[in-house]
C-alpha cells in the first residue's frame, strides 16, 4: 500500500511539473484566434474576407514551410474557389506576335521545367510591430514562408508568345475580383527586362504538390527576391504593354519613399515609388514569449535572415541590448533566394531580463539600421530585439 501511495505521489508531482514547465505565456497575452481554412491547419486569423492567414511563429522553425501552414494574403474578397483544370487557360496577349492560351498540361509538357527555393514575404510582414502603429493588415512575423516552387520560366512563355519591339511592361492578373466593379482590379507589372530574367517562374507546384487554392491554385507568379505583392496567385492573364502600366496597384498602392522604406511620421516623404526588392532583415523565431529560459541552462536561440538574393554573410547576436555582439551559426544555404536559418546556444549566467538583438550583414557588407518607420508599415528591416526573462 505504502509503495502505491508513493508511486501515486510521484506521478502527481511529475504531472504538476510537466504542466508548469510547458507553454506558459505572461499574464495579459491574448491568444491569437486560430482558424482552419480549406487545405490549411491552425493558422492565425487576420481577416476572413478576403482570407488573410498568418503562419504561427513555431512553424517558421524549419527550412521549408509546409503548404498547409503557408501564409495566405488576398486583396479582393471574391477569390475563385472552383477551378476546372481541363478548361483553365493562362492567356498571354497584348503586344505579342501570337496570343497564346496555355493549359496546365501545356505548361507541364511543352516547356522546360524549372524549380527554385524562394522566400515569399508580404511587403507588410511585421506591420503590427511598427511604432507608432500604422493601419493595414496587422501581421506579426508570419506573413512569410519558404518553399520550393516548380513551374515554367516566365521568359520561355513570353518567348513562345513573342514580345513585340517596343514592349515596356508586362502585367499579371489573377482570377480574383472585388465585389464592386469600380474597385481597381488587382494587376501587377514588371518591366520587360525583369520579366525575361531566368529566375522568374510561373509555378504550378509548391513543395511537390499543387498549390493550395488559398495560395493561388493553379498558377502563381514567382518573383524571387521581390516582395510577394508581385507573386500573383490564380494567375490567368499576362499582358504585354508598349507603355508604362499605370494601374492602381502599381502607382497608388504598395508605395515606399523613393529614398528607401524609412520616413518620419512628422515629415512624410513626398516622392514614392512602387515597393520592389526584399529588404535585409533578421528575426527571432525561438524562444518565444511562451517559452521559459533558465539561468545556467543552455537555451537554443534561433531565427531567420533574408534579403533580395544578395546573400547573408553573417548574423550577429547581442545579449546586452547591443553593447557587445557575437556571431550566430548560419545553417547551410538552401539557395540565394531562400531564407537563411541561424542559431546559437545561449547559457545565461544569471536570472533577470535580457534584451537580445539580432542583426544581419549581406554579402555587400550592408547591415541593418537601428530604427525604421514608414506610413504603410512596409519592408521591415531594422534590428529586432527580444526581451527574455531568465528564471
Amino acid at each position, binding site marked *: 500500500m505504502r509503495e502505491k*501511495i508513493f508511486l*501515486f*505521489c510521484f506521478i*502527481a*508531482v511529475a*504531472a*504538476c511539473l510537466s*504542466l*508548469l514547465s*510547458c*507553454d*506558459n*505565456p505572461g499574464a495579459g497575452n491574448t*491568444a*491569437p*484566434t*486560430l*482558424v*482552419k*481554412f*480549406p*487545405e490549411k491547419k*491552425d493558422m492565425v*486569423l*487576420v*481577416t*476572413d*474576407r*478576403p*482570407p488573410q492567414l498568418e503562419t504561427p511563429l513555431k512553424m517558421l522553425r524549419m527550412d521549408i514551410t509546409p503548404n498547409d501552414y503557408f501564409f495566405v494574403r488576398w486583396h479582393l*474578397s471574391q477569390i475563385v*474557389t*472552383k*477551378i*476546372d*483544370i*481541363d*478548361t483553365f487557360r493562362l492567356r498571354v496577349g497584348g503586344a505579342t506576335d501570337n496570343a497564346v492560351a496555355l493549359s496546365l498540361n501545356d505548361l507541364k509538357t511543352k516547356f522546360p521545367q524549372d524549380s527554385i527555393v524562394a522566400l515569399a514575404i508580404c511587403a507588410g510582414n511585421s506591420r*503590427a510591430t511598427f511604432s507608432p*502603429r500604422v*493601419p493595414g*493588415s*496587422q501581421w506579426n512575423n508570419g506573413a512569410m514562408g519558404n518553399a520550393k516552387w516548380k513551374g515554367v520560366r516566365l521568359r520561355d512563355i513570353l518567348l513562345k508568345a513573342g514580345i513585340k519591339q517596343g514592349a515596356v511592361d508586362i502585367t499579371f492578373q489573377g482570377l480574383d475580383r*472585388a*465585389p*464592386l466593379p*469600380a*474597385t*481597381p482590379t488587382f494587376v501587377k507589372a514588371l518591366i520587360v527586362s525583369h520579366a525575361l530574367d531566368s529566375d522568374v517562374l510561373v509555378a504550378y507546384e509548391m513543395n511537390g504538390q*499543387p498549390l493550395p*487554392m*488559398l495560395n493561388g*491554385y*493553379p498558377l502563381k507568379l514567382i518573383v524571387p527576391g521581390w516582395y510577394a505583392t508581385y507573386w500573383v496567385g490564380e494567375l490567368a492573364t499576362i499582358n504585354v504593354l508598349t507603355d508604362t502600366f499605370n494601374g*492602381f496597384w502599381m502607382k*497608388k*498602392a504598395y508605395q515606399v519613399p523613393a529614398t528607401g522604406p524609412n520616413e518620419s511620421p512628422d515629415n512624410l516623404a513626398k516622392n514614392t515609388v512602387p515597393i520592389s526588392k526584399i529588404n535585409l532583415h533578421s528575426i527571432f523565431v525561438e524562444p518565444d514569449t*511562451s517559452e521559459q529560459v533558465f539561468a545556467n541552462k543552455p537555451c537554443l536561440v534561433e531565427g531567420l535572415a533574408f534579403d533580395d538574393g544578395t546573400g547573408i554573410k553573417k548574423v550577429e547576436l547581442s545579449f546586452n541590448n547591443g553593447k557587445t555582439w557575437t556571431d550566430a551559426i548560419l545553417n547551410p544555404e538552401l539557395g540565394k533566394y531562400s531564407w537563411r536559418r541561424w542559431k546559437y546556444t545561449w547559457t545565461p549566467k544569471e536570472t533577470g531580463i535580457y534584451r537580445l538583438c539580432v542583426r544581419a550583414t549581406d554579402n555587400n557588407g550592408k547591415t541593418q539600421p537601428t530604427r525604421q518607420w514608414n506610413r504603410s508599415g512596409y519592408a521591415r528591416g531594422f534590428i529586432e530585439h527580444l526581451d527574455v526573462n531568465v528564471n
Partner: protein
Amino acid sequence: MSKATVILSIFLVFALAAIGCHHPKPDVYVKPDDTFSVVGSVHEMNIYPEATPEFPEHQGKAEFISYCAICHSLRYVSTQPDFPAKTWQAEVDKMIHKYKAPIDSVTGAKIAAYLVAIKGKK
C-alpha cells in the same frame, strides 16, 4: 483522515492550480475536413465561414456594419489598434476615393466617428 489522504489532497490542489494557470487555448472555429475537394478535373474549396466579432453599440454602428462589410469582413477593423481620428477619417476616405466604396460624405463621417468611438486613440 489518513496521512496518505492528506498528501494526496495537497498534490491534487497543486495539480488543479497548475491547470488553472495554464495557457488559454486559442479559439479555433472551423473544422473543415470536408471544405476542399478534387472531383475529376475540378478543384473546389467551399466558402469558408465568417466569424463576425461583436462590436460595441454606438452611433454610426449601423452604417459601419452595412457599408464596410460590402467589400471586406469587419474583422479588418477589430484587428486594428487604436488610431487618432485623423487616421480613421483617412481610412474611410481611402475606401471612398481609392476603392470606390459607394459612401457619401455624410455617411463617411458617421462611420469615421464610430471608428473613433470604438478604436480612437485618446
